[in-house]
């Protein structure tokens, strides 16, 4: 498995603003790779440099073994791109949109219909894109990015403007994209999305990559322990501190929260005291990773 993307010391400034400030990473073939960060972190800029829409001020990018800048027509059929906004022709139906894109890539029209049904838009095929819901438009734009079966696909905040329900519905589509060894690069400002979908995540803030690894490794690396909360009525803070395996205890509004690196012992102790009422067990999340890395609350 070789690298399909290598990014080496890439910088990009707009006037006084440094959008990308010395970024290095590589994406392996077949990987589901996420770039995670708040708005303005530089995610879209680095993505556009990799796609060949912008030139980097310095540093180098290799895309499928070639340089994407200046516009490299030989690379274009091998990559699929979904841009942040839903980029469609005016007043065409969903089917007409995807068939237009199919023919731009020299793909038969039937492939368009197949992709419409893969993203669950069969019933909306004859609806104009202006009348589709936000989630349906995102599905269509993902289908349009994939209609020519590219080996590498870029998705820029595919769930950006969607409500939580529509986001989760779209995850099923996204999960299926890297079957058959396709590489997927996705930007998102949702922690849970990166955790749920990505093999590896680059956490980006203010133009730099703070950390890059699998979500599980990033969270484990925090050494944050497991947070177990129970109702205050069944366990006082004082009693909680007496339990074996407990590192620290906090009292919150409606719960007592125990932090531990040995959850099985703590849970056994709690069970022995019949203090499991309102029990919640929470592992650390990428949100905690971000907080630890930047010292700031994560705000999308």
């Amino acid at each position: 498995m070789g690298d399909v993307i290598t990014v080496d010391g890439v910088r990009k400034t707009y006037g006084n603003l440094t959008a990308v400030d010395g970024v290095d990473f590589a994406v392996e073939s077949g990987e589901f790779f996420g770039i995670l960060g708040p708005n303005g972190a530089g995610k879209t800029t680095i993505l556009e440099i990799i796609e060949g829409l912008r030139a980097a001020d310095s540093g180098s990018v290799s895309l499928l073994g070639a340089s994407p800048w200046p516009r490299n027509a030989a690379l274009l059929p091998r990559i699929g791109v979904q841009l942040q906004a839903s980029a469609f022709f005016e007043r065409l139906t969903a089917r007409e949109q995807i068939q237009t894109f199919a023919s731009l890539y020299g793909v038969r029209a039937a492939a368009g219909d197949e992709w419409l049904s893969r993203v669950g838009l069969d019933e909306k095929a004859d609806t104009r894109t202006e009348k589709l819901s936000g989630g349906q438009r995102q599905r269509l734009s993902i289908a349009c990015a994939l209609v020519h079966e590219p080996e590498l696909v870029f998705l820029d905040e595919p769930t950006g403007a969607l409500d939580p329900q529509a986001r989760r519905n779209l995850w099923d589509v996204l999960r299926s994209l890297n079957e058959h060894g396709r590489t997927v690069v996705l930007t998102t400002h949702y922690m849970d999305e990166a955790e749920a979908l990505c093999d590896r995540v680059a956490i980006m803030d203010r133009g730099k990559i703070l950390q890059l690894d699998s979500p599980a490794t990033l969270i484990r690396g925090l050494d944050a322990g497991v947070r177990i909360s129970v109702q205050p009525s069944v366990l006082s803070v004082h009693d909680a501190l007496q339990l074996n395996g407990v590192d620290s205890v906090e009292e919150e509004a409606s719960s007592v929260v125990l932090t531990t690196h040995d959850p099985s012992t703590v849970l056994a102790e709690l069970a022995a005291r019949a203090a499991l009422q309102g029990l919640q067990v929470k592992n650390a999340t990428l949100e905690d990773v971000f907080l630890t890395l930047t010292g700031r609350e994560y705000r999308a």
Partner: protein
Amino acid sequence: MTGFLSLSAAILKGFIRDKQAVFFSIFFPLMFLVLFGGIFSDQSQSKIVVVQVGEIALLDDLPPQAQSAFDDAFAVTSSDDLDAALQDVRDGDVTLAVEQHGKDILVHYSDADQVQAAVAQGTLQAFVQSANLAVTGQPPTFNYSSQRVEDESLETIQFVTPGLLGWAIATNAAFGAAATLTGWRSTKLLRRLRLAPVSTRTVVAARIGVTMAIALVQTVIFIGLAVAFFGLKLSGSWWMAVPLLICGTLSFMALGLLAGAITQTVEGATSLANIFVLPMAFLSGSFFPLDDAPKWLDVVSHLLPLRHLNDGMLDVMVRGNGPESALIPMLILIGFAAVVLVVAGRFFRWETD
């Protein structure tokens, strides 16, 4: 080629389904054609209205040739009520009231409109005199014949059809280019197409091709309607209007691209295109002839592409000039397009800020 065709199809469908665009580029100018062609076309042939009181043998027994000449000049109504007829003359509803007593023809007129009254009397007198001459049985010593010096283009429909067509084509070309550029830029479709294996040249060619196809449809509808219903007579080399219109379309698309390059939104771009096109249409003689315009206006209007398109189309469509008379307007239109494109290129951005 498939890329060109599918892009063209997408753009064309987008246009046909845009009711506003179809209205403003096809039906709106057609409404003006109907207005100008239908309502104003009778103005030059208004007849002198005459009331004939009682029997007038002279008018009833005109020889056939004189009768048709008389009918061209006069609209005659009959009345037996002299007082009512005189009142009509005073009110200006009719120009003359005519009665005959024996061999005397008596004509009542009003001084309210002296010119009209004088013309009417002079014309009527001529008929009386030629009747006198006919009675003598002598062949006339002098013959009178006349020929008008103006060409056919003075007739309203001959003049408005090329002008309104030029305006319609300018509107569609400028709006189409402006709206496509800003619309595609703001939805990022422009960037999306850059990431598809289709060249910028193909995208531009598809947009130009669709606009030209629409221009040809506009031309067919306009000329067809004007010929069928409003009596437009095309002169020999009218077919040169087609290459002229193609060059004109390029000019106006360049203006539209400039509008799109300067502005950010579709609304802003189409408003700016309107600001370019509508005054240009007035100054280029699309709505009224510039023959009597002051010198400075004439100079200004020659800086505008639509003026040259209108002049060229008048030359080949109705003035009967040869096909070569379209060549210079065509060169000017292409030159204008090239200059404006360079300027638009300076302002062009791939995306909105």
